[in-house]
């Protein structure tokens, strides 16, 4: 548990939509990563990539073990040839590491194993590492991540020192940082310290802002290994029965499309989708053998359509005037800061800069909303949400 509200969010990872991606649901809405020939899937088998300067060869589809409850799924993944497995000290309060360790104990030497610490101090981080090694039943981690760092200043000297000390002691082979957002801040900081850092674990998916793709490219060029998480953009899990696009998004292949989209980018060396059952595992394995196609694009476009009503793209084209004087586009922008970029403090600060009278407006007291968004954002609902979390 963290003692402050984190800046980073899954929403930032999965649901922030850049203007271009929000513009329509046509083919052009999907931000295309470069497709290098070298990463083309090999029919009928697994595909491997080299994890940057670590030199470790890993399957392009790995396994994020966070919500897996049955070790048989992890065991099967290893048997089928997946070589990268990720957990964290904080997952299920340590119970997840124990499960992963039990599942992989007979394969430890043939897989790449990573864990993470959310510690804030060197002492705590090193204590976490020792605990992780005990729970995982191994004498070393291949990669040890600083967990969920959303800004460059989170990469403190003492945490870096902890990783260096652990490496020197042979308890870890490589040092990494995981981030759910803040890529533009954290990745350049990692590149600046590339003599220390080896691997970037970053949220990356089809719905993210286009600036993330070149950031990953720059990290890869600097020799850092790139592991992508939140590759399914989360929205697939969030859709509920009764939602307009439920059937489309829940159908077989929807999550696979998202995974294949990520794998199109050769700068992504492996991915860690969460898997809770053997059927998901079997489906995800196809991402290594079946190329991204037009059908996948349609599914992802539908997903963008699903999340579109939630996010203002700041186009300034909303019509109507709020009779209570609310600065509608500003309010929606603040909400995007908070929910989209995880910048809750910044968002609330800006909200509190509004005149007191405006801060006291409650949209749910209005019978109807006079503001219309040409892009389908549910304005009244979103304004109420902003008032709920900022006021």
């Amino acid at each position, binding site marked *: 548990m963290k003692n402050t*509200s984190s800046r980073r969010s899954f929403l930032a990872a999965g649901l922030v939509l850049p203007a271009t991606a929000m513009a329509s649901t046509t083919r052009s809405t999907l931000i295309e990563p470069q497709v290098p020939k070298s990463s083309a899937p090999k029919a009928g088998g697994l595909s491997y990539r080299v994890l940057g300067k670590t030199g470790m060869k890993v399957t392009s589809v790995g396994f994020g073990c966070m919500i897996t*409850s049955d070790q048989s799924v992890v065991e099967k993944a290893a048997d089928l040839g997946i070589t990268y497995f990720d957990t964290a000290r904080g997952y299920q*309060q340590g119970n*997840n590491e124990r499960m992963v360790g039990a599942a992989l104990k007979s394969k430890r030497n043939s897989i790449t194993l990573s864990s*993470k610490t959310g510690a804030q101090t060197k002492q705590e981080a090193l204590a976490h590492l020792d605990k992780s090694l005990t729970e995982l039943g191994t004498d070393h981690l291949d990669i040890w991540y600083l967990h969920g760092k959303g800004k460059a200043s989170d990469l403190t000297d003492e945490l870096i020192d902890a990783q260096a000390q652990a490496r020197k002691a042979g308890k870890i082979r490589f040092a990494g940082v995981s981030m*759910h957002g803040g890529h533009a801040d954290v990745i350049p900081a990692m590149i600046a310290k590339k003599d220390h850092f080896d691997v970037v674990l970053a949220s990356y998916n089809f719905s993210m802002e286009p600036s993330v793709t070149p950031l990953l490219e720059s990290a890869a060029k600097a020799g850092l290994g790139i592991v992508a998480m939140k590759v399914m953009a989360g929205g697939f899990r969030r859709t509920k029965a009764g939602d307009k696009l439920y059937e489309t998004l829940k159908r077989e292949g929807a999550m696979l499309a998202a995974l294949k989209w990520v794998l199109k980018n050769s700068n992504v060396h492996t991915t860690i989708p969460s898997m809770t059952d053997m059927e998901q595992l079997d489906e995800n394995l196809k991402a290594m053998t079946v190329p991204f196609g037009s059908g996948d694009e349609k599914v992802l476009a539908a997903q963008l359509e699903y999340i579109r009503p939630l996010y203002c793209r700041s186009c300034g084209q909303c019509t109507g005037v709020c009779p209570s004087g609310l600065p509608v586009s500003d309010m929606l922008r603040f909400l995007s800061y908070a929910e989209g970029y*995880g910048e809750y403090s910044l968002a609330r600060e800006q909200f509190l800069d509004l005149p007191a009278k405006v801060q006291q407006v409650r949209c749910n007291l209005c019978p109807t909303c006079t503001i219309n968004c040409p892009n389908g954002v549910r304005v009244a609902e979103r304004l109420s949400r902003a008032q709920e979390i900022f006021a």
Partner: protein
Amino acid sequence: MKGPLILIALIAVNGVAGAQTPDCSGVAGWQQQGPVREYGPDNLFDYMDGNAEGYLIYRFVNMKGVTCKKGDDTILIDFHEMADPEYAYGLFCTNRDVRLPNEAIGMGGQVLPRRAVFAKGKYYIELAASPDKDHTAALRGFVATIEKRIEGRATPPDAIGWFPKDRLVPNSVRLIPESVLGLRILKHGYVGQYDFGKVFLVPEESAEAAAQVMAKFRERIGQSVPAKIADDAFTGTDKYLDGLCVFRKDRYIGGFANLKGGRDASAEAAALASSIK
């Protein structure tokens, strides 16, 4: 889902807590620092990067939390409201230290030097203390006052009591929110550990639905041998689940998996079936 609701039908009798907000007044000398934290399914990730999904799969509804200060000591108190008590208990089981016993706090709880967790009603409560020292006394003080405040079920879900105790690893039974045994057809249910294999129990919405799942299970296993337990049963083997003994009783599918060396668990499966109410 209708199944789990029926499974915990008694919960309704016990009453359901209204929305709860933590505060620091429960223990003398502690002061609230900052506003109440509030998160829903859409932004829980803001609060717990990389860990939120583990809460969401247990049907997380919302979280309200406060930071309490006393001198240099800090205790975070977070109330997680789940869809129903069964899932609150499920999240507690997932996050507890399985090597330590449960205490009789609500449906179950644990108080450690820097951490306390328990479930009561539809709430899963977490307290975390810093700096690094023994905060047990303060944590117990807060836990006691919080437990009194929260209404709702204060005993584990009935199904927990159905598993025969003999050779059951203590505190091993927990709710799996999706894909029991790593199989999608077993949507949600309980799993526990015996010293000879894994036990599971999956509620379906009706006997008919359970029969359909049973047929799919058989099909998945391939070669199976009929067994005489409850309404329907079979034994078989699977590469990852090892030896299996599976039965259906009314709308429940249960049995044992990961049986090694041809271990026959028919007697234990029959005992489990007979205890299902």
